[in-house]
C-alpha cells in the first residue's frame, strides 16, 4: 500500500510541480519576512551659513541625530565614516558616497543666525532611491529655542520615514523627588521629552502626585497634600496660576485627568470610605457621578474621541480594568489575566490601553487592545508603574523604582514593541511622568 502511494506521488510530482510554478504574466513572489533593525542614517554637520552659526549648527545637528537615534528606530552612522562631504546646502548630493557607507537616509541642513534669531533649513534624502524624501523645510526661532527647532527638524525626519507623527518637540511633567525614602521631598517639574530644560512648578513644601497635561499642554492637573488631604489643583502654565477643583470638605479627590475637549475633568472622589469616579465641568463647576457602588473605582482615562472612559475597579474582588461610557454607566471588564491591573491610560491613537500589572510580586508595564485582547507586557521589575503615552502613541514613559533603602524612582521609556527600554535623563529622581501633546 505504501509503495503504491509513493509510486503515485512520484508519478504525480512531475506534473504537479510545473503547475505550481506555472507563470502567467509577471513573476510573482511574496515576501512575508523582513528584518527589524534600526535604519542607518547620516547627518553630516549642518552648514553654517554665517561664522557665528557654526556652533549652533553643530549643536542642532547633534540634537537631531540624538533624537532619531534615541528612538531605537534609527542608527546614526558616525561622521568619521562619512565619505561624502556636504559643502553647500544646495549642491547636488553624491548618492554613491552615501550608499557606500550604507546610509539609507541622509539629512542635510543649514543654519543661519543674526545672534538673536536662528533659521534652520534641512533636506532629507532617500539614498537608495537617489531622490529627496519630501521637500526641504525651514524653521525659525530665537537662539533660546534652539533645541525646539532641532526637535522640529527631527520630528519631520521621523515622520517622513516612519509615516507616523514625531514626539520630539514635546514636554514631560513629572514629580521630581529628592531626599531619603522616609523624608522624600516631591515637586512638580517639567522638562523636554529628553530631560533638557527642566523647570519646577511647585515647591517642596507639600507632597504632590500624579500631574496630568491638558490636551493643549497649557495646564496641568495634579494632586497635592498641602491641606493634609489629597486635593486636585489645576495649574496654568502660561500664567503660573492655580486653583483647587471641587473643594468640598470631608472628601478626598485624586487621580484627575482631562477630557479630550479640555473642558471636563474626571477624577476620583473618596467620601465615607467609598471611592467613585466623577466628572467636573470646568466652565460651570457642575459635577457628575459616573460610578456607584461600594467598590473602589479610580484612575479614569478618556478615549481620544471622548466617548469612553477606562478605569480600574475592585468590584470583582481584585483590581481590574473596566470601560464605561463617558457619561457614566455600567462598566465592562476588559482585563482577565492573572494578577492585578491598574492605572490604565488610553493611547492617543485610540487602539490600545497601557496599564500597570502586578503579578507574583513583580510589576509590569503592558498594553492591550481596547477590548482586552492581545495583552503584552513590555517591562518587568521590582516596581514599574504609571505609564504615559508619547504624543504619537509609539512610546510609553513610566516610573521604575529600585528596591532597597537606597532605592529611588526614575523615569524610563520603552517602545510599544517592547524594545529600546532606556532611562530618561532627569535632574535627580523622578516619578509619575505625564507626556504633553506635541508643542505648536
Amino acid at each position, binding site marked *: 500500500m505504501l509503495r503504491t502511494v509513493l509510486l503515485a506521488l512520484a508519478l504525480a510530482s512531475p506534473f504537479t510541480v510545473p503547475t505550481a510554478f506555472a507563470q502567467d504574466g509577471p513573476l510573482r513572489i511574496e515576501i512575508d519576512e523582513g*528584518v527589524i533593525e534600526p535604519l542607518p542614517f547620516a547627518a553630516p554637520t549642518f552648514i553654517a551659513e554665517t561664522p557665528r552659526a557654526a556652533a549652533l549648527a553643530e549643536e542642532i545637528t547633534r540634537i537631531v541625530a540624538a533624537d532619531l537615534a534615541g528612538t531605537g528606530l534609527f542608527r546614526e552612522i558616525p561622521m568619521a565614516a562619512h565619505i561624502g562631504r556636504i559643502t553647500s546646502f544646495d549642491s547636488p548630493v553624491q548618492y554613491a558616497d552615501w550608499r557606500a557607507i550604507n546610509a539609507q537616509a541622509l539629512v542635510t541642513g543649514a543654519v543661519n543666525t543674526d545672534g538673536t534669531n536662528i533659521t534652520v533649513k534641512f533636506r532629507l534624502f532617500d539614498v537608495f532611491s537617489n531622490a529627496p524624501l519630501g521637500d526641504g523645510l525651514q524653521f525659525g526661532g530665537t537662539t533660546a529655542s534652539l533645541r525646539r527647532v532641532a526637535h522640529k527638524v527631527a520630528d519631520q525626519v521621523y515622520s517622513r520615514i516612519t509615516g507616523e507623527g514625531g514626539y520630539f518637540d514635546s514636554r514631560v511633567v513629572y514629580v521630581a523627588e529628592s531626599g531619603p525614602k522616609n523624608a522624600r521631598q516631591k515637586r512638580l517639574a517639567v522638562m523636554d521629552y529628553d530631560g533638557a530644560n527642566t523647570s519646577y512648578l511647585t515647591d517642596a513644601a507639600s507632597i504632590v502626585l500624579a500631574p496630568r497635561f491638558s490636551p493643549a499642554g497649557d495646564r496641568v492637573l495634579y494632586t497635592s497634600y498641602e491641606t493634609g488631604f489629597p486635593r486636585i489643583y489645576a495649574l496654568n502654565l502660561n500664567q503660573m496660576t492655580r486653583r483647587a477643583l471641587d473643594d468640598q470638605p470631608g472628601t478626598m479627590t485624586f487621580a484627575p485627568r482631562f477630557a479630550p475637549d479640555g473642558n471636563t475633568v474626571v477624577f476620583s472622589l473618596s467620601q465615607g470610605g467609598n471611592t467613585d469616579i466623577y466628572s467636573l465641568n470646568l466652565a460651570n463647576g457642575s459635577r457628575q457621578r459616573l460610578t456607584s457602588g461600594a467598590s473602589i473605582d479610580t484612575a479614569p482615562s478618556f478615549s481620544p474621541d471622548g466617548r469612553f472612559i477606562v478605569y480600574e475597579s475592585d468590584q470583582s474582588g481584585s483590581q481590574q480594568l473596566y470601560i464605561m461610557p463617558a457619561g457614566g454607566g455600567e462598566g465592562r471588564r476588559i482585563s482577565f489575566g492573572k494578577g492585578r491591573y491598574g492605572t490604565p491610560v488610553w493611547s492617543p*491613537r485610540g487602539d490600545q490601553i497601557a496599564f500597570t500589572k502586578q503579578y507574583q510580586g513583580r510589576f509590569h508595564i503592558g498594553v492591550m487592545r481596547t477590548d482586552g485582547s492581545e495583552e503584552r507586557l513590555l517591562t518587568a521589575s521590582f516596581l514599574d508603574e504609571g505609564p504615559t503615552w508619547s504624543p504619537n502613541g509609539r512610546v510609553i514613559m513610566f516610573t521604575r523604582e529600585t528596591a532597597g533603602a537606597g532605592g529611588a524612582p526614575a523615569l524610563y521609556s520603552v517602545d*510599544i514593541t517592547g524594545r529600546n527600554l532606556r532611562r530618561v535623563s532627569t535632574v535627580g529622581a523622578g516619578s509619575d511622568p505625564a507626556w504633553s501633546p506635541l508643542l505648536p
Partner: protein
Amino acid sequence: MNTGVIISGLGHGLLILWLLFGGWFSRPEEAEFTTTEVSILSETEFLALTAPARAPSIVNEAPDVPAPNTELAALPPVPSDARPTPAPQPDQPTPPNPEDEPDVSRLTPAPPKEVADDLPDLPIPPAPEESANLIPDIGAPRPVARVAPTPSPAPTPELDRAPEVSKAPKPSEDAAEQLPEDKDAAPEEAAPEIVTEAEVTQKQGTAPASSIRPTARPARVAARPEPKPEQKPAPAPEPVSPPRDALADALAEALSGSGDAPTGPPLTFGERDALRVAVSRCWNVGSASTEALQTTVVVGVEMTPDGKPVQGSLRLISHSGGSEASARQMFEFARRAILRCGASGFDLPKEKYGRWRDIEMTFNPEKMRIR
C-alpha cells in the same frame, strides 16, 4: 478400484496442470493484424481527387508558362503519342480533352471546379506555406514548382529522352508520319508532363495525402469566420497572414515565449526562494509605524537583464489592510528593500530573463507585526 481412481486422478491432475501451465510453454501465436484505413469515394469524388492534383499545378503554372505554351502549340501531335501510357487506365474523360493546345486553357478553368468539389470550404490553394509544412508529401503543388522553372530549360534534357519517346510510338502508327518533323520538340514536352501526371496519379492513389488535409483545415476554418475564406482567394497576400494566426502564433508562443527576451522554463522553487530571501534581507520594517505594519502592498518592478531593478519602474500596484498613507509608507519600505539589495543585481538565471523581467512582489508584514 484403486487403479481406476489413481488413473482418473492422474488424468485429471494432468489436465488441470495443462490448463494452468500449458500456456507457458507454448507461445500463443499472435494473429497479426494489419489495418488499413479505407475511405469510400464516389466516382465524382475520385475524379475530383485526381483532378485537383493537376489543378493547382496548372493554376500556378498558367501565369508563368506562357512561353512553353507557344512551343506546345507548335507540337500538337506529341501529346497524342504520349497518351498511350495513360491509356492503360480506362479514363474516359481524358481522351476528349487533350490533343490540342486547349489542354492548358481547359485545365486552368478546371481547377476551381474541382477544388470546389473536394474542399468546398477551403480556398487554401493559395497557401503554399502551410501545405508545405503540414503535408510535405503532397504531390500536387510540387509539380507546379518543377514545371514552372523548368519549362524554359526543359528542352535540352528532354532532348535526351526524345529519342526514347520517339521509339515508343510503336503502338500508334498514324503518328509515325508526323514524328520525323517534330522529333526534337515533341518528346521534350511529353516527358515532363507525363512524368508529372504519373506522379500525380500515383500519389492520388495513396489517398492519405489528401485525407490529411481535411482534418487539419476544418479546424482552421472553424477558428475563423466563414466569410473570410471567401474574400481571401481574391487577394493574393492573404495566404501568409491567415495561417500564422492559427499556427505560427501558437507555435511562436509555445516555442519562443514572450517577445525577444530569452525565456527558459519557469523559475525553480530554489530560484524564486533565493530572490525572496534576497529581498527579505533588505526589507527593514523596524522603523515602520504600527499602522503601516497592518498594510500589505504589491509592488511592481522591471528588471534589467543583469538582475538589477529599474529604479523608475517601481510602482505600487495595490494595497490592502491600511490607509493610503500607510500604503505609501510601506511602498517606500519595499522600494528601499528592492533597490538596496538589488543594487548589485539579484542572482537570477539570465537564460530565463523573460520569466523575471517583470516582477510583482507582495510585501506582507503580517509576521512582522507587534504581538
